[in-house]
C-alpha cells in the first residue's frame, strides 16, 4: 500500500525518473511526466516519451524490475520499486493530464526559487508526445529526501 503522502506526491508537481537494468545488470534511465495511482493504491501508471525510452522498455519487458524516483522541487523525495505489468501508447486523456502536470511543475519550480529563465524551459520543455504509459505494481516505497532517514522503507 502506497502511503497517502506519496500518493499525493505522485499526483502532484513531481519530477519523475524511471530506472531499469538489462540482462548484464547495466542500468538505464528515462524521465516521466505525470503519474496515476490506481484505486488499489498499489498499481501505478507513469508516462514516458517514446523516442527516448526504448532501452528502458526493452529492459522492463525482459526482466520486469523497475525503480521510480520521485522528487518535488523542495527536494522532498521518494522511490518506488516494483514489477512491470504492461504498457500502451498514451491517449488524449493521458496527454491532457500531462500538460496539467507540466504547468504545475513550472509553478512549483518558481515557488522553490528557480529563476524564471530556468524554470520555464525546464518544466514546459518536457516532451509529452509521442508517449508510452507504463503500468507497474509498487512493492516497496522508500523515503529519499536528502538527509537523515533517507533510504527508510515506508511500506
Amino acid at each position, binding site marked *: 500500500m502506497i502511503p497517502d503522502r506519496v500518493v499525493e506526491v505522485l499526483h502532484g508537481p513531481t519530477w519523475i525518473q524511471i530506472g531499469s537494468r538489462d540482462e548484464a545488470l547495466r542500468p538505464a534511465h528515462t524521465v516521466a511526466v505525470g503519474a496515476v495511482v490506481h484505486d488499489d493504491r498499489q498499481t501505478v501508471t507513469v508516462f514516458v516519451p517514446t523516442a527516448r525510452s526504448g532501452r528502458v522498455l526493452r529492459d522492463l519487458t525482459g526482466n520486469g524490475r523497475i525503480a521510480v524516483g520521485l522528487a518535488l522541487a*523542495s527536494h522532498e523525495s521518494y522511490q518506488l520499486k516494483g514489477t512491470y505489468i504492461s504498457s500502451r501508447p498514451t491517449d488524449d486523456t493521458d496527454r491532457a493530464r500531462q500538460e496539467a502536470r507540466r504547468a504545475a511543475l513550472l509553478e512549483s519550480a518558481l515557488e522553490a526559487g528557480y*529563476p524564471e529563465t530556468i524554470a520555464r524551459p525546464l518544466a514546459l520543455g518536457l516532451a509529452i508526445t509521442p508517449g508510452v504509459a507504463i503500468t507497474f505494481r509498487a512493492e516497496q516505497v522508500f523515503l529519499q529526501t*536528502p538527509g537523515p*532517514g533517507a533510504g527508510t522503507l515506508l511500506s
Partner: protein
Amino acid sequence: MSADPRDTSGLREQIAENQQVIDRLNRDLARKSNEVRIIQQISSEITSTLDLDEVLGIILRAMDHVLAFAHSMILLKDVADNVLRVAATRGYAEQGAGAQVRLGEGVIGVVGERRRMMRIGNIGASMRYLKTVRARMESSGEVGPAEAPAVLPGLTDVQSQLALPLTVKDRLVGVLAVESRTPNAFDELDEVLLRIVGNQAATAIDNARTYQMVEQLGRLKRFFSPQLADLIIRGGADDPLKTHRREVTVVFLDLRGFTAFAETSEPEEVMGVLHEYHAEMGRLILAHEGTLERFTGDGMMIFFNDPLPMPDAAERAVRMAVAMRDRAAELAVRWHRKGYELDLGIGIAKGFATIGAIGFEGRWDYGAIGTVTNLAARLCGEAKPGQILISPRLLPEVENLLEVEEMGLLAVKGLARPVKPLNVLRLRDPA
C-alpha cells in the same frame, strides 16, 4: 589507382567539416590571444605604480572593461588577524569598503583559507539543497537550530562566484573575486584569465602596501622613537597623527636658572649643557617609553598613554621623573663646579588632551593641547630646584610608590578651583 568519383564528395564533406573545426579553433585562439595580450598590458600598468588605490583601481577596471565582469572586489588580509577586508569594489551600489569576511566563511573566506581558486555557478540551488538537509537534521534532532549565516559583502541572490587567492611567496595578501546573479556565469577560460591578472596583482598590491607601510613608518619615525613607530605600524592601529582625544599623564620639566645662564655664558657652553641635558633626559624618556612632545631649549614636555595605550601611565611618569631628578642632580654637581646655577624642576598632571599633528608642511609636531598641559607646566614653574610637583589626581595610582608631602594651594589659569600639589620626596622602594 584512379580515384572513385563517389569518394571525392565524401572527401569534400570531410574537408569542409575539418575546416569548420579549424575555423572555430582559430577564432577561439584569436580571442584567447587578444585577451592574453590585453591582460599583459594591464599587468605592466599595474606594476608601474606603487600607489595602492591606483593599483586596486587598475585591476578592477580591467575586470570590467577587458574581462566583462560586471561585479568585482578586492579584499586584503591584515597582517595581524584572520580577516579579509574589502579594499576596493566595482559594480556595486554602495562602496562596501571596510566590510569584513572571516577566513573560512563564504566563497571568499574559503578561498582565503585554502589558498585555492574556486568557481561556483549554482549557489542558489546549493543553498536550497543544504537547507533541506539541515531542516531534516534539525527535525530528527541530529543538530540544534542553525547559527546565524555568515554576513557577506556582495550581491544578494548571488548565483555565481569566481574567487582567486592573491599570494606572494606563501603569504596570503588578499582575495580577488567576481560574481553574478546569473547561474553558471563563469567558465574555465575566465579562471585562466583571472589567474593571469591575479599573479601580477598579488605582487603589485603587496609592493604597494609595503611602500605604504614604509612611508607611514618614515613619517611616524619623525615624531616617535623607531621602536615606537614600529609598534604603531605593526599594531595596525588608527593613524595616531589624526587628531584624537585621550587621557594622558603629562610631565613638564625645565632647568631653573637657564635663562640667566644662557644670557651670561658663551654659546659653546650653553650648547654643551643643552646637549648633555637632552641626551640624558632623552635616554630616560626612551627607557620609560614616554612620548616627547616638544623641547624648547631647556623645557621638555613628555606624555604617557599616547599613541600607545598604557595602563601604568602614571606610574611610569613618576618613575621617570624621579630618575630624571637623580640624574640631573649628578649633572648639577659638575655644572655647579663650573659655576652654572642650573637645577631641574618637574611638574606632572593627568587629564584629557587633544592630540595630533600640529604645524605646517615641512614643520610638523606631534602635539597635545588641553588644561592638563597647562597644569603640568604651571606645576613645573612652581617647583623649586630639585622638586617634583604632582597633581593630586595622580595620587590614587602612585601613593604606594611614593612618599609625598602636601603643598599649599595653587591657583592655575584655566582651572576653576586652585590645586593642592604634592611634592614627591622619594620612592618608597627604590626599584
